[in-house]
């Protein structure tokens, strides 16, 4: 007996063990990119704090900003290459809630 779901997301996804090798690989990619995204956001926030504190020269600010901008662009490329949406790069930590904010 099957149930119709009108939600856009398959709730069974969370609990099923995917045996299909292709989706195992995709799951790993998603996890890796999520962690990279976490680092990127942490670095970005750290940089913004330093800028706000005024502890960086203009040149340093420009350099950090350019690096982060390039990193953001690269992440977008990678994400799109694997067919992932921004909201796919998140981890549900159960009772701790989501890892990253929803954009």
């Amino acid at each position, binding site marked *: *007996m099957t*149930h119709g779901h009108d*939600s*856009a*997301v398959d*709730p*069974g*996804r*969370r*609990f*099923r063990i995917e045996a299909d090798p292709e989706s195992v690989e995709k799951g790993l990619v998603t996890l890796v990119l999520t962690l990279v995204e976490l680092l990127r956001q942490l670095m*970005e*926030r750290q*940089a*913004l704090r330093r*800028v*706000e504190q005024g502890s960086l020269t*203009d040149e340093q*600010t*420009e*350099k*950090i*900003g*350019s*690096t*982060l*901008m390039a990193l*953001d662009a690269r992440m977008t490329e990678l994400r799109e290459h694997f067919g992932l949406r921004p*909201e796919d790069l998140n981890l*549900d930590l*159960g*009772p701790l*809630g*989501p890892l990253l*904010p*929803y*954009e």
Partner: protein
Amino acid sequence: MYAVTADSEDPLTGRLTGVGGGQLRAARAAGLTAIVGDVSEAEFGEFTLRSNLEDLDWVERTARAHHAVIKAVAEQCPVVPMRLATVYASDRGVVQTLRQRAGDLRVALARITARSEWGVKAYAAEPTDLGPAPGRPAGDQASPAIGPGAAYLQRRRAQLTADKDARRSAMASAQAVYAELCRLAVSARLYPPQSPDLAGRRAPMVLNAAYLVPDERAGEFAAAVTDLGASARSVRLILTGPWPAYSFVGGNDAAIRDEGA
């Protein structure tokens, strides 16, 4: 064991079946009636139950069947629901429980009589033009000529601030809604926000509350939810119900009003 009602009630019509399609029956003791049904040991024995509870499809089927029984009984008389998978080896255990817990069960029964549970969930509203997107330059602020890197950082800061403000605003709205609705209820209980995977929505959930409302105030309660939903800018409200009073029989709720006898 699905639920408990007063001994005076006889809610089983004979057409109702429980989990796994089994027939339902009543077990009576201490002035109370327990609604019970047989389930297979293969599914509900201690070890298989544990692994079944990790299979969402099994949990869904079982939860819906469990709820169907409780809801059918609730349409006939006040009913105290049991948690899912309350399993005994035989009816003797059920009868023993009725005797041992008679006091608690009677208190719970009185508490939910002529009252229903309503669920209120709040989601943060979808962001509109709250701030510049990273791809576009920030506002009209006259900034001195700055490089693209520094400009990127400005945009990101504006975006993060806007997101944080929206989240704060949504949470504040959620708290205000929660408090306002408490005024119309006998009790309230907060649940953790639902996982977006299961709930199937992207916007963060900022309130997941259940309210115990006297049936004669149900219309007033629903109208209040509609009004609050219309006037709140930063959250979207969803009302579910009426439910049998699952959330108000386990002692985990914040009783707001003294219960009259």
